[in-house]
């Protein structure tokens, strides 16, 4: 543990490619996911352009790919765009950047360990992502240019080579995540530094810990379901396919939805609990105030995870599932709003009467809270099956998921990158560029996603390649009806009146989405520029308490150049008996009278 930087000489390949060092693996995850983030973002921009200006010519490749359509994309290509956008963003960006990148980088550093419990397994968990990358990449080369069935892949619509590649990619991602989760659980349970009790762990680690439990228990179900659908597709087994022209049947499409959502709803929490943990740490650090209600925060994370296992049916209120069952799922779903609300109240409690430093990571962290309020609250109407009837499969759902996962998690990821970048690369990121990046991303993301709620309560269905077909039909229908209506009154379709509103809102959303894509240039410039020109960071540039800030920046092999011994909780900011406004977890007890008691209990003391 004391051999920082003094590691037996290794070849370039074993040091930077097939490395077993958690920091290198975390960085590999980080770079891979950021590249896929660009791919997913590009797909999103493409589909937004189709929605705002339907059937305009596709630039550059249009004439080659769609010669018969005269350069316009096909409706099936549009289906590919949103399917691959969702698949890439969920399975290649958000899950691996939280668990893979931040989990790997932070868990050993924050618990005071020199590496993960199983370094080789850790390396494998990254390298098994590559077959997944290759499979999904190959699916772009299939006749449909990728998967076209929506990321939920509901049989019996799913078929063809793109499905095979898509399923294989997800199976590999699942295997990698399971390897990771076993490793994280073991590391957190077994390898904490002396004195680091479970109730002295920072919230980031609690988020990772609970997430790893979710992954370990829910992923096998998805993996099994994926293998069954693979068998359906390749060998005609018919687990999920009823009798039809292409299948001898015997299967049950609803079964797939149950198995898929049994994982994919907990996956939503996998995609947000680590972010919540990171945000808790960042807010406490920059508010210079202990986290409000540390234990309630842990209980609420655990509550979200526990309830998260029994809410999957709320994706299926109108699926044909027994509506009585819908009532049960509605109760558990509505109750899950409670721990989420408790978390929001505690974050605001942490900020209240703090001494708030509005650095770039803090702005992103606060915006996570602000946006999660919207994403969380918009979940309440759709948690109620009655109100879900009109809102289901409309843009309201699209708005909800993006407020949780983009405006929530992705903003927290940016907060995490700006916050831990100095530790990772030894240099500070530029604050001016960071704040510009924050400001424009924040404005554009609200422009992009808020009006989707409006489209949602108007009843505009999602996954429509365009609303032109509707309008065309309406116009044709009107002409026909005008001819036949005996009383001479022309008949109008209700949707026709809404069409103008749908179109201007879609154009507005697309302009904001393109703007949001463009301003990421600030981030890219900042990220790579700071590698070379950033101000050198010391060990603890943010004056934070947790263990990773006691190591050199960047930490050498083995992380710590001393044996960390933990004597208090992670949130001892602005203690009245100290001169500085922070006390690190490894600092010895402050005085002999023991006035600064170990805050391992986190007991809620009255204000």
């Amino acid at each position, binding site marked *: 543990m004391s051999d920082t930087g003094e590691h037996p000489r290794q070849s370039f390949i074993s040091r930077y490619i097939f490395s077993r060092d958690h920091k290198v693996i975390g960085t590999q995850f980080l770079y891979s996911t950021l590249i896929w983030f660009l791919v997913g973002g590009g797909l999103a921009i493409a589909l937004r352009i189709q929605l705002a200006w339907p059937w305009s010519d596709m630039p550059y490749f249009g004439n080659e790919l769609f010669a018969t359509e005269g350069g316009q994309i*096909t409706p099936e290509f549009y289906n590919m765009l949103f399917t691959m956008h969702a698949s890439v963003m969920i399975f290649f960006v958000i899950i691996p950047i939280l668990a893979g990148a931040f989990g790997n980088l932070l868990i050993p550093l924050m618990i005071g360990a020199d590496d993960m419990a199983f370094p080789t397994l850790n390396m494998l968990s990254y390298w098994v992502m590559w077959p997944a990358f290759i499979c999904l990449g190959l699916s772009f080369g299939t006749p449909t240019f990728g998967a076209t069935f929506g990321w939920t892949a509901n049989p019996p619509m799913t078929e063809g080579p793109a499905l095979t590649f898509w399923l294989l990619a997800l199976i590999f991602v699942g295997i990698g995540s399971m390897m990771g989760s076993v490793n994280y659980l073991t590391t957190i349970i077994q390898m904490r530094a002396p004195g680091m009790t479970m109730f002295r762990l920072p919230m980031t680690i609690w988020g990772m810990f609970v997430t790893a439990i979710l992954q370990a228990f829910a992923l096998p179900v998805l993996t099994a379901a994926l293998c069954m659908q693979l068998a359906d597709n390749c060998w005609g087994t018919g687990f999920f396919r009823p009798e039809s022209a292409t299948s001898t049947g015997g299967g049950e499409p609803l079964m797939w939805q149950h198995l898929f959502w049994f994982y994919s709803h907990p996956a939503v929490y996998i995609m947000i609990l680590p972010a919540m943990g990171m945000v808790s740490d960042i807010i406490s650090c920059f508010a210079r105030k202990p986290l409000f209600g540390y234990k309630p925060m842990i209980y609420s994370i655990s509550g979200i995870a526990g309830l998260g296992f029994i809410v999957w049916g709320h994706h299926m209120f109108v699926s044909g599932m027994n509506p009585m069952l819908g009532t049960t799922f509605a109760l558990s779903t509505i109750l899950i709003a409670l721990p989420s609300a408790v978390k929001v109240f505690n974050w605001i409690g942490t900020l209240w009467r703090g*001494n708030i430093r509005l650095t770039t990571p803090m702005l992103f962290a606060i915006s996570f809270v602000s946006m999660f309020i919207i994403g969380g609250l918009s979940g309440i109407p759709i948690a109620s099956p009655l109100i879900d009837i*009109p809102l289901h499969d409309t843009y309201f759902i699209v708005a909800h998921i993006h407020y949780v996962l983009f405006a929530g998690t992705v903003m927290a990821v940016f907060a995490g990158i700006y916050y831990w970048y100095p530790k990772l690369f030894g240099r500070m990121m530029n604050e001016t560029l960071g704040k510009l990046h924050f400001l424009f991303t924040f404005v554009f993301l609200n422009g992009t996603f808020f009006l989707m*709620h409006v489209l949602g309560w108007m009843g505009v269905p999602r996954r429509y390649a365009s609303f032109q077909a509707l309008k065309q039909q309406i116009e044709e229908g009107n002409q026909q009806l005008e001819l036949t209506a005996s009383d001479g009154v022309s008949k109008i379709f209700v949707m026709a009146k809404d069409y103008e509103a749908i179109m201007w809102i879609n154009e507005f959303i697309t302009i904001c989405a393109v703007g949001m894509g463009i301003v990421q240039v600030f981030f890219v410039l900042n990220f790579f520029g700071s590698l070379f020109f950033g101000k050198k960071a010391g060990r603890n540039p943010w004056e934070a308490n947790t263990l990773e800030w006691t190591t050199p920046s960047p930490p050498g092999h083995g992380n710590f150049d001393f044996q960390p011994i933990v004597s208090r909780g992670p949130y001892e900011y602005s203690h009245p008996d100290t001169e500085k406004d922070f006390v690190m977890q490894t600092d010895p007890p402050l005085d002999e009278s023991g006035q600064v008691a170990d805050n391992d209990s986190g007991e809620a003391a009255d204000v």
Partner: protein
Amino acid sequence: MNRFWSILFFLVPILGVGVCLMSAFGIYPFEETWLPVDISESGKDIDRAFVVVMWIIGVVFVGTGYFLAMALWKDSYSAGKKAQYSHGNTRLEIAWSVIPGFVLIGIFVYQSIYWEQQKISRPMVQQVDGSEGLQEPLVRVVAHKFGWQFWYAGMDGKVGTFDDFMIENELFLPMDESIVLQLESIDVLHSFYLRNLRIKQDLVPGKRQFAWFRIQSEKVKPNQVYDILCAELCGWGHSRMNGRLYPVTREAFDLFLLEKHREQNSFGLPVENEGGNTGDGEAE
């Protein structure tokens, strides 16, 4: 600069609630962006539940948004100042767990009553022998890639029998009476979506589903035709899978059936779909 950021966060609830209110009251540029016209009897229950929940979450949205931005406004950094040293407040934690808990359970109970009417209890009718039985479907809806077949009862007055006749994409329904539809799919998942009746039901191949509602004639404008949409991704033609709903009086509906039965040949073969001309039945 800190003030700038707190104003930015103040703007979130202000603009958010502003957009919702502008949409609800049809203020420029949000004209015609509120809930779709409702022509059903039970739609008002769903709409009311939506509005009630929107008010509740609106209050929470403004409240939390205010305290968040206010904290940034008043507690911004100054050197030498020390933040309050507090690890929490048990009474506050209990209060902000219990109160939302009651509100959430309240929402659950309130909506469950109408959910039961909407999806669980299919209407009952008095049968010939005097006992109560489930109401039989008036039309059988068969979804396929990419259209809707509406099968009406033939001479025997029952759907699902050999003499049914079919019209593609055009659904005629009588107003002011309880209607049950039988929903099926023959290929992939579809979702039968009537925006103006607040009906949405996925159709699963191999399963029969039912939807029930009552069209209120006073809410129907003369000669208005309503959309039938597909709300579950079903392939390349998903967005083109549009049907039309014609609410008609009972007399017009009976006339329409009668005319179709007359057109039907003696073997009970279905009539050809005649497109928009089938609208004649309603005009008569």
